[in-house]
């Protein structure tokens, strides 16, 4: 019974929201109220997650665990952000600029590292995976679509070739449609399993 309680609550909530969606506008105030509760619960859960993160890093610092200096930096940055945000307010221009000067370089560097890792993976792909249908099709399609999207290929003299190129450029859309349809079907099946309490058997 202890394991079935969350499943029952999830199923009942899903059914009520589904019914509320179907009986608009009579149920719209109740639907908004339930969504507000969900947002509040999610916010509280987010605060709990932040508190857990802070306590964990404080414990690392107290125990002198390897790499505790990173925990020290994290705690220091967190305290400064919270203190100055509460004291100056999130509308303060100096506060926003200070956050901006830290945030943008860090995320840009992270993006550059991702590009570097992708390049390294491109070099090692065929050496590690060998020649297979997957690797060959991936490498070929990547080269073709990167080249087409660069815009260097100009075929203004032939309408037919332009149509062919346009058709090739639409191939990613076909793949995207397949992915979206698959994701939609998966979400639908998952929702039905939750509504009928079938997820409890897998836990």
């Amino acid at each position, binding site marked *: 019974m202890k394991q079935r309680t969350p499943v029952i609550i999830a199923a009942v909530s899903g059914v009520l929201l589904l019914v509320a969606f179907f009986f608009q506008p009579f149920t*719209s*105030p109740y639907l*908004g109220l339930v969504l507000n509760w969900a*947002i509040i619960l999610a916010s509280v859960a987010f605060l709990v997650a932040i508190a857990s993160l802070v306590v964990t890093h404080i414990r690392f610092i107290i125990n002198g665990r390897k790499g505790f200096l990173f925990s020290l930096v994290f705690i220091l940055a967190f305290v400064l952000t919270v203190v100055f945000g509460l004291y100056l307010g999130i509308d303060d221009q100096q506060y926003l600029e200070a956050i901006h000067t830290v945030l943008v370089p860090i995320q840009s560097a992270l993006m550059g590292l991702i590009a*570097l890792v992708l390049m390294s993976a491109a*070099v090692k792909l065929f050496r590690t995976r060998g020649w297979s249908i997957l690797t060959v099709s991936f490498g070929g399609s990547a080269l073709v679509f990167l080249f087409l999207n660069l815009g260097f290929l100009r075929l203004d003299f032939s309408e037919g070739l332009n149509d062919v190129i346009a058709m090739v450029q639409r191939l*990613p859309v076909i793949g995207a449609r397949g992915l979206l349809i698959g994701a939609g079907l998966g979400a639908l099946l998952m929702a039905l399993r939750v509504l009928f309490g079938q997820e409890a058997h897998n836990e």
Partner: protein
Amino acid sequence: MSDNPDLRICPNCGQENSLYTLRCIRCGEEMEELFQLEGFDPSEQLSNDSPQEDQAPLSEVLASLDDSPLLAEPVENHVDENGGDHAGDDQSSVVEKELPDWLERVRQRAQEEEDASGELSKLGHTSKERRQVDEAFDDILRRIREQNEREKTRKPRTTEQGMVDEKGDPEWLRRIRELHPKNEEDPRETTLKGLPLEDDDAWTKEELQELLRREMGISEHADQAAEDEKFEEIETIDSAEPSIDLPFQENFHNIADDDQDEPQEEEPAEPEEEANAEEPESFPDNDPETENAIDEPEEPDGGLQDQEGAVEQPDEETAEEAESEITPPVDKVLPDLLLLRNQRERAQVLREVIAQEGQRTITLLHEPARQGKIGRFVLALMLILAVLGGILFGGEAGIANQPIPAPALAFEENLRSITSTHPVLLVLDYHAATRGDIEPLVQEILAILDSNRVTTRIVTANPENLWLGETPDEFIPGDMLGYLSAAVSSDPAWGQLPLAQGFSGDAKIYHEVDQAILISDSSEFVRAWLEQVSPWQSGIQTSVVTTSVSEPMLLPYFESGQLRGIIAGASQFRALGTTQQGSINQYAWQAGTLLMMIVLILGMIMKVDEDRQRRTEERSQ
């Protein structure tokens, strides 16, 4: 002497030896102290030239020898060893029969004369008698020594008698077979196996007779040439016995070294005896012809010896070389320590394992990690140089007249058509990392809307966008749930909803809005908006500003009409008009994309080259 009573220290080199060792295992020095008799010093006896001084100790020694148990002991021991098969009387009679004449005469005169020693001393003034006395004394000493040796070698044999396996093989023979496993298939060994092994473990009648004859032969061989033929037969049998001691047996123990060295201690034997002693080592098998050849004095050309291989080469040098290969250093082997070959090999393996302690013996699995780091460093340098080159040296020619995609054209057309007085909702949801791809477009969009005098309302559910925006935005708590709640709910009859109190502005963000522009680098956010929020606000037309990465996933929504237009990344900035910042970003993007293509092709080429090298190696093998 050593502190250990079981060990004796060599007076020459100081090596500790077994108590019964005749020669030092290190230097080969003879351990004469073992054979010293109480009250008798042979060196002093031999070095003294005065005949008067010789008489008194000689008579005492001869008198004591008659009563000495050492001379009587072998007969009793043989009886014990042979059990009841041989009577003690028979043995004693045989011994008496084989006694030399001079000893018999000495005994007779000692019994008849009251002062036998005195008479002998008188008679001993002549040199001939003196020589006879010396020879008799030497013979007695030799007999005592040999009896001690026999007794010493007999003790371990008797102890090993009980260690016989079910096949009847004693333990020493099993050890020898284990030391020489290859020789077990030697046909010569089958011949030796045919001999009664019990003869090796017990003293037989023939051995006793052989012992006595050898003793007599040493002292009387010069006078008894008639008995040489018998000696040859006995020596042949006796010399065949050591052939059971397979080659290199002496290398694995330190007990039988004395036995091996014993022939060298003895006086030089007759050439015939030497030939008989060496022949058994050279006959290889039980071939009748070969057995007949044993009686021959020499082996012609050593043809049979060649069949034996290098194991039984009669040459002393080759034997010493082979011995040096197998025999460990003597000073490293403890006395009385018997090591089998496999035991020595295991000890050697253990020694090597200990020596390799702390040393790397196998290559690390992640050894190429250093090379990978260097490769990534090179790739990073290439990427940085390419982007910098695109930014610094790129020009208008590189991107001139590129075709504008249809979604971007639709977005531009929809944007310029907004002229209503209703506000346009701008929803921000992007990160700092993609701001270079999005913000130039947002600036252009705001400029166009401002030129059309369209009011805008900028909202965000991502706190990061509060810090990225130059002007404070309205924050929507709850991410997508906040947008959904604002789209679904209506004002209840009992008052405001809890989140309505958290809005800084009007909680009705969709109020009188007919155009919404989603500015996001996440296709998931746009998809959730279109699938969850838009159905509740069907009057709002949505268009998207996103990155090149997210564009393919949003194109289906554009083709289905759910999106009015999509403009993706800096590559499509020309749809909104040229700006300097947008051009710079496009140069860098093109350079990075070109470099990515080159690296991908490089990976293929490396794989092809690797396969070619592997095929070449396989062919060469």
